[in-house]
């Protein structure tokens, strides 16, 4: 794990990159990394995340700045700007059931090719998906989903990069930390090694490539 400045961290991201970003309605999103992406005007990004929050918050900032080419998310109902850009064709939005989205990400991070889920069978979410019959039940074959970068927000990070999350800000964060080719961690608090007890480490240090330094 390398410690890195905010500017350097975002500097690693090329235009056109795919980014997994933690957060659920903006809670648990690495807000200052998002702000820096906007400042450096990274373009044609693909975002994979639970939602696009509300206008001007979290991932909503990337939508507002029109930096996204595509978004793979489960919900955009509370962000009218995302819906508007989708309707006008500016932004390609793929809507995925939330449980399927997180499992596709988990599969990628855990070395699996995909998952079988009953969710979406017989609905328009099954479009172009292969059906698999197993033990008398019908499932959709959903492929694993990886990304160039995972942008992870933690409550605590130690000097090695062990991460721990707070309350409902955990959500997608520990799962995307396994599925990004490069993992950039950002924490509310950077603490000495040992402050996070082994049982309380939720993302082990070796999966974190970069930890963003305090300003």
């Amino acid at each position: 794990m390398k410690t890195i400045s905010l500017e350097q961290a975002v500097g690693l991201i090329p235009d056109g990159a795919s980014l997994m970003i933690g957060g659920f309605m903006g809670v648990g999103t690495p807000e200052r990394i998002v702000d820096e992406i906007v400042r450096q005007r990274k373009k044609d990004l693909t975002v994979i995340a639970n939602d696009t929050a509300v206008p001007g918050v979290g991932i909503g900032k990337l939508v507002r700045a029109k930096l996204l080419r595509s978004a793979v998310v489960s919900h955009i109902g509370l962000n009218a700007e995302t819906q508007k850009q989708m309707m006008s064709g500016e932004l390609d939005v793929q809507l995925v059931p939330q449980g399927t989205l997180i499992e596709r990400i988990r599969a990628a991070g855990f070395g699996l090719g995909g998952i079988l889920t009953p969710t979406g069978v017989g609905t328009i979410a099954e479009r172009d998906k292969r059906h698999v019959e197993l033990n008398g039940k019908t499932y959709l074959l959903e492929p694993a989903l990886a990304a160039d970068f995972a942008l992870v927000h933690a409550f605590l990070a130690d000097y090695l990069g062990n991460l721990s999350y707070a309350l409902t800000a955990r959500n997608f964060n520990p799962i995307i930390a396994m599925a990004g080719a490069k993992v950039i961690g950002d924490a509310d608090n950077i603490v000495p090694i040992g402050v996070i007890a082994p049982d309380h480490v939720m993302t082990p240090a070796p999966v974190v490539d970069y930890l963003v330094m305090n300003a």
Partner: protein
Amino acid sequence: MDAQNIIARRIAQELSPGMLVNLGIGIPTLVANFLPKGMHVFFQSENGLIGTGPIPEEGMAHPALTDAGGHPVAALPGASTFDSAMSFGLIRGGHLDLTVLGGLQVDQTGRLANWMIPNKMVPGMGGAMDLVSGAKRVIVAMQHTAKGVSKLVKNCTLPVTSVRPIDLLVTELAVIGFPNARATLIETAPGISAAQVLAVTDAELVAPTHIPEMRQ
């Protein structure tokens, strides 16, 4: 009492101690207000919380403790938090006893449409498809009609949320079950006759000779 609270109060009768329950947004959220006194139920928020409590007092909200809409909540003693894979493992894996969801349409076989109106409202399905596919029991809280049009229909014209039929529909007029994939009147609201329910229902609705009054 208004229609929404009549529905929520009736659904609260379906709760029993120790259940794990997920309440959707809208009318379902009101169900928690009618939890029988002294009964302990685990409420799940799919963003990663079991033990969702009321809105914190002013000045006590924590930015990392929210419901699935991103609004501040409290966590009750005995609460637990977890990531989204665990949250949907609970939902899909047969661990969730009950989900209560809002509805746009329910058809006469019990299929629910509640996540989009093509070309008009495309919010995304969020967790709805997983909830209907995975919960042990699915109850829909929905007003009987919208602008005078029945929401209990012969066939859903809107995209369905799941092919798994719901277990119970509660409207301000009636409680409806789906035995043998046929919408069946189970209870009618106080002062409402079966004939009055049938008159405002598009779906074929089985009406037994004796229909008890809605429990409350």
